[in-house]
């Protein structure tokens, strides 16, 4: 199975992501706690949006943010 975000082999069957994008997603999730602590209250989608907008954010993290946003929006709809 291929990664949903690139051409590499997926290692995570649930999210269908390769090792690199999986690592990026893990870091996005770990960062959420720190951002919540920093800003007080923050919802998941705003967090993803703001991380995606930062210039220092890694390219795979940006791809993951867009991917996770889509997934969340899809679930909500």
């Amino acid at each position, binding site marked *: 199975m291929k990664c949903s975000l690139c051409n590499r082999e997926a290692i995570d069957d649930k999210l269908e992501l390769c090792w690199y994008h999986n*690592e990026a997603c893990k870091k996005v999730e*770990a*960062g959420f706690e720190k951002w919540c*602590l*920093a800003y*007080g209250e923050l919802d998941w989608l705003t967090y993803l949006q703001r*991380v995606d907008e930062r210039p*220092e*954010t*890694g390219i795979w993290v940006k791809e993951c943010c867009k991917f996770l946003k889509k997934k969340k929006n899809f679930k909500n709809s």
Partner: protein
Amino acid sequence: MPLPQVSSPYTLVICEKPDAAERIAEALSEKELNITKHGNIKIFTLKRSDRTYVICSAIGHLYMVSDPLQKRYVYPVFDVEWFPIHTVDRKRRYLSQRIGVIKKLAENADIFINACDFDQEGETIGFNILKYACGEKQTTALRTKFSTLTKTEVQEAFRSIVHGLGTGLAKAGRTRHIVDFIFGVNLSRALSESYHEFNQGYRVITIGRVQGPTLSYVVNREVEIRTFVPIPFWRLHAELDKDGATIVADYEKKRVLQISESQRIKKRCEGKKSVVTQVTKSIYRQFPPFPFNIGALQKDAYQTFGYLPSQTLEIAERLYLSALISYPRTSSQKLSPSIDYQKILTGLLMSKTYNKDASEVLNGEMIPNQGPKVDPAHPAIYPTGDIPKRALSSTEIRLYDLIVRRFLAVFGEVALREQISVTIDIGGYLFNIYGKQTLNEGWLKFYRKYTSVNDKVIPYLVEDEKLPLRSIVAEENFTQPSPRYNQSSLLEKMEQEDIGTKATRANIIKTLYDRGYFSGSRIFATDIAFAVLEVMRQYSPKIISIDMTRKIEENLEKIERSQMDERIVIHQAVDQMMDSLAAIKKAEKEIGGKISQAIITTIHKQNRLSSCPLCKKGTLNIIRSKKTHKRFIGCSRYNKGCRASGPLPQRGPIIVTGKTCSNCEWPIVYVRFNRKSWRQCVNTTCISKRKVEKDEM
């Protein structure tokens, strides 16, 4: 032309490079120096103490390790032999004539002297020539040892000539070549063959004992950068009034992790009195730098002039061959006590540029500040004090100046600097101001233009002084990813981790660029780099481990000191390769597919300029015409009717800048050709081009 007619027997001196041979010949000749040319090869004949000396040179390595079958696609290959390079590499056929000349000269010689550079590579070059071209003379030949090509040192080296000085060095050097062949050639052939197996194409894909770990540093850093999530934090600073001027004090905590806390501090400080609670001054000593070794020289030359490490090595070699500096391929941070500092400094006195500084050092104690690193073969890099006999190029002048000033700085006095720290209380919160100034310049006066030591002057403040508070600022910041490696910092990393040698590190980095694994001056790892490293992690993890290559380096040092048999190291290398190569062989198609895909993606990315300014849907790419083989720019939606296209220069590399023209929004490319470089908008109808045309008219 014929070889020199010399009455035999004579002493044959083998040098590493033609320039070195010429310098040595000039230094040794007492009266007459005869030069005969055989094609491009110069042979020097001279009389010295009633003995005839014939001096000839190699041009780097004349022999190399290869497999007896010499079939490029066959692996594994463990039985290796030394061959004349011209029989293996067709591009270097010109070396056959040089070997022929040395063979001919060796026939009538009765004493042989190896005068190649005194290190592993030099010893290997000399050893192989003596063994294969001179007929097994490596055991009886004499050895010279010098660190500069000045007349005095060369003459001294020939006076104190010894027998069997570099035996350990030669064994270690030859073992290094064999081990590197076993790892590098086998794995590279396995990867190239996998690529061929998948798509029947041919591409050189290399990996080696030192390339592996170097590649992994860059790829690991790339992963770190691409998976980086910035974390917010706040910096607080107070703007205070001091006699009408604004001074800025930083909050004692460098990072406040919560916005609520930063706002609370800001509110509590606003409108409060600010009082200077403490002023401390401390004087500290800044010691002179260590003398240059090749790594430090490459690092400073990159930071100061932007010279690539390989370029610095090349320039330094030229300065060495012109007898202006000592042998540059050294890891030593020590100047040997036998070096005549007085003579060097007196030589520098003759130069207008260094006259004042050299005389100041001459009047001092002349004790150098030395570092811990030692190189048994050569001391740290130092100027010889000789005056250049030829006009130096601008790059040579700059590097020479850096080396001379560093040499002078090493003898300089300790610099005295003062650090002033002021603490200000604002509503119970502490803010700091720091200042630094130089009290006694010491060595800095010689090396000021090459250091980043700067003064930061702050206004005079006393304890209990009240400073009106203008404002408190809470600034939002984000953590930053680790910087990308550049050629200099990567070289430094290799040096820290002790992989490769001082002579080969810069070339390893260059090879990784040539193979398409790296791109940009701030090093980006390409998809090919990722694919090769992933394959290595799966099938030959040891090749990318620092431990393995470091262990081999340790063993080579043991061989150099005659504490280990070279056969053990070679057998270990063969054992380590067996399993890896068998596993790669089984998975050739899968590996080839992975690498092919990565190559296609990398080429596609490198050729992509920007989104198409005409159709707004496609992308502008660099395309090579199948019919004419010329390159041009075209839209990816050509088939769907978009006719956006532009011509490109047909020669020289074209670098994608990622920037677009401010007039027409078409991409701008950077072109390099014939020592010139320029940026150009690829749109032929761009207004900027019309302006240029009008100007020209």
